[in-house]
């Protein structure tokens, strides 16, 4: 008798997905898939709206990373009003970057402390009643307190620039709408009301040290779990190839480090990418056209970014990058669980960059906007916390959006996450007579490394169960578990 095992929804990811694992009569895995079953439709319903509404509307895609959508759309709209990223005033560039680093910092902190640390600290097969953020807080209260304050710091930066922590507004076509005041800036530097940016840097270093210690005792797990070869894609600085989150050129490598996308301009992305569709998922499968669907898919996000960049401009993060690269003798790292480590290096990079920007008097300037020659098309690409985010808009002569294409970070990671699920299915579930909760959680551990942001869902009390269903090959439910 063949069976189908369903994990629906996947937990501790942003939004909800479903995993199905097909077993034959001997409990051998025959297939495994990660389905995205929520539909957003933003690309359609933004059509007809004036272009200047795009940065405000599209950030509603998400309650976790709205800043990334806001900034990617803003970069595209800048082009529509004739402003390239380098044409923005220096104060506007720096204020936008401050917002972006605050966003990535808080999002990465959220992921590590709230979502990943329970699996790392207690083990993927530990008691699920303990294996959650409350368990972490009870057992490691100082760690939890630092996690809370680091996330709060990033959110306060967002609030400073955009007016509120979620769905604020910072950008205007060709710039930003307000400067930072000296008093506002002091809040982040003087260590009075909240821990200062220097404390954030110190704690970021401490968390990486924690990860290094964890690595010593859990190397086998980190080296092997959900390891598979893949391409790696992200932005790098167009001048020196360094890590770049706000504006750069597109670079990709294969699993061995051979360049597959050679520092391509944002405006040319459409020549290189194609998006495949599968009937079992709403999420598309992007790949590099010249490599084809089977070989052209790439991981995006922290691991990919650290893999492809030539360096990091801030000293502490650069030293951590060198230590990280030394683990693989400078070669590409294809070990999924090292994504957590790479994410922490980016936490440190963001902290160092926030300090640099906060101490820069340009953010106090009133030179905030630029105007250029109106166009009918704009492309904005940014490195969101979860990876490369592409916004592409076309507008008519009446300023209405006629076409919108979004390739979000989690879309790039669609095939990598499916690969991760297949790895767990083949290496953990295959041949097992009984599937335990711990085994099921390992599927989620593999997915969670990518920090997927599937969508924000309704959450009314009492109605968001974890549903597990077991089907026979006739489609009959032979077992069902619901966890509220």
């Amino acid at each position: 008798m063949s069976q189908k095992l369903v994990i629906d929804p996947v937990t501790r990811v942003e939004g909800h997905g479903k995993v199905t694992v097909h077993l034959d009569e001997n409990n051998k895995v025959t297939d495994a898939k990660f389905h995205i079953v929520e539909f957003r439709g933003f690309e359609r319903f933004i059509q007809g709206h004036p272009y200047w509404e795009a940065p405000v509307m599209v950030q509603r895609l998400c309650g976790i990373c709205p800043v990334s959508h806001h900034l990617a759309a803003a970069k595209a709209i800048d082009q529509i009003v004739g402003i390239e990223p380098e044409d923005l005033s220096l104060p506007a560039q720096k204020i936008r970057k401050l917002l972006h680093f605050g966003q990535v910092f808080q999002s990465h902190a959220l992921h590590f402390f709230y979502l990943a640390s329970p699996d790392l600290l207690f083990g993927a097969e530990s008691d699920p009643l303990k294996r959650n953020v409350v368990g972490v807080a009870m057992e490691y209260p100082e760690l939890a307190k630092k996690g809370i304050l680091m996330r709060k710091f990033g959110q306060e930066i967002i609030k400073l620039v955009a007016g509120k922590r979620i769905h604020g507004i910072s950008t205007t076509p060709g710039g930003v709408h307000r400067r930072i005041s000296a008093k506002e800036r002091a809040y982040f530097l003087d260590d009075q009301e909240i821990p200062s940016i220097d404390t954030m840097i110190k704690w970021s270093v401490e968390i990486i040290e924690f990860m290094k210690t964890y690595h010593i005792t859990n190397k086998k797990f980190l080296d092997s779990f959900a390891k598979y070869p893949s391409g790696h894609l992200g932005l790098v600085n167009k001048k020196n190839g360094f890590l770049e989150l706000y504006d750069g050129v597109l670079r990709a490598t294969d699993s061995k480090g051979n360049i597959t996308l050679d520092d391509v301009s944002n405006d040319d992305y459409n020549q290189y990418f194609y998006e495949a569709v599968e009937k079992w998922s709403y999420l598309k499968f992007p790949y590099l056209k010249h490599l084809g669907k089977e070989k052209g898919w790439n991981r995006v996000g922290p691991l990919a970014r650290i893999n492809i960049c030539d360096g990091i401009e801030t000293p502490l993060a650069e030293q951590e990058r060198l230590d990280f690269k030394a683990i693989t003798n400078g070669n590409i790292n294809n070990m999924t669980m090292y994504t957590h480590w790479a994410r922490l290096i980016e936490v440190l990079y963001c902290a160092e960059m926030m300090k640099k920007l906060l101490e820069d008097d340009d953010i106090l300037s009133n030179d905030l906007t630029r105007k250029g020659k109106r166009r009918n098309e704009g492309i904005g690409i940014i490195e969101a916390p979860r990876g490369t985010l592409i916004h592409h808009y076309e507008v008519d002569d009446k300023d209405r959006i006629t076409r919108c294409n979004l390739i979000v970070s989690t879309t790039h990671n669609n095939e990598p996450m499916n690969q991760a699920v297949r790895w767990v299915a083949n290496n953990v579930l295959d041949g097992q007579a009984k599937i335990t909760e711990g085994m099921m959680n390992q599927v989620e551990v593999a997915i969670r490394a990518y920090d997927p942001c599937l969508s924000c869902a309704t959450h009314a009390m009492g109605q968001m169960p974890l549903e597990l269903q077991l089907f026979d090959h006739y489609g009959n439910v032979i077992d069902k578990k619901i966890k509220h």
Partner: protein
Amino acid sequence: MRNQSKTLIFGIGNCGRADDGLGWAFLDKIKPHLPNNYDVEYRYQLQIDDAELVAQYQTVFFIDAHKNSFEKGYLFEVCHPRATDSFTSHELDPKSVLLLTKTIYHKTPEAYLLGITGEKFCLSMGLSNIAQINLSNALDFFNEKILNLVN
């Protein structure tokens, strides 16, 4: 009797999901009537960092949409710190937030949950007729019993 302690009201929900916006709608309606010792916070979902905020208050109310039915259209109950068998940690229930406050910050504010029954949770703006009636009942209760605004 009117509560004089420093008090926080969380409105939890997503107004783009029809009746899931009940928590926010409650705050919109109650805000003009609140005394100075009350603060309000709008949330899509509660998260771990809310534990730090909760630690700064003596009394906390959590207002959220509820899918279960109640005689008066709402549920009001005391909320105690407790580890719940929640399967997710990117949104926490009020009891878990209170437990974090107690564990990390050693504070245990008086806390209450007000769940207002909704009917529609689809992608749309605005409350259903039933949700509006339940919201009105919940507001009457809060005004009368908590704020003591009704004679």
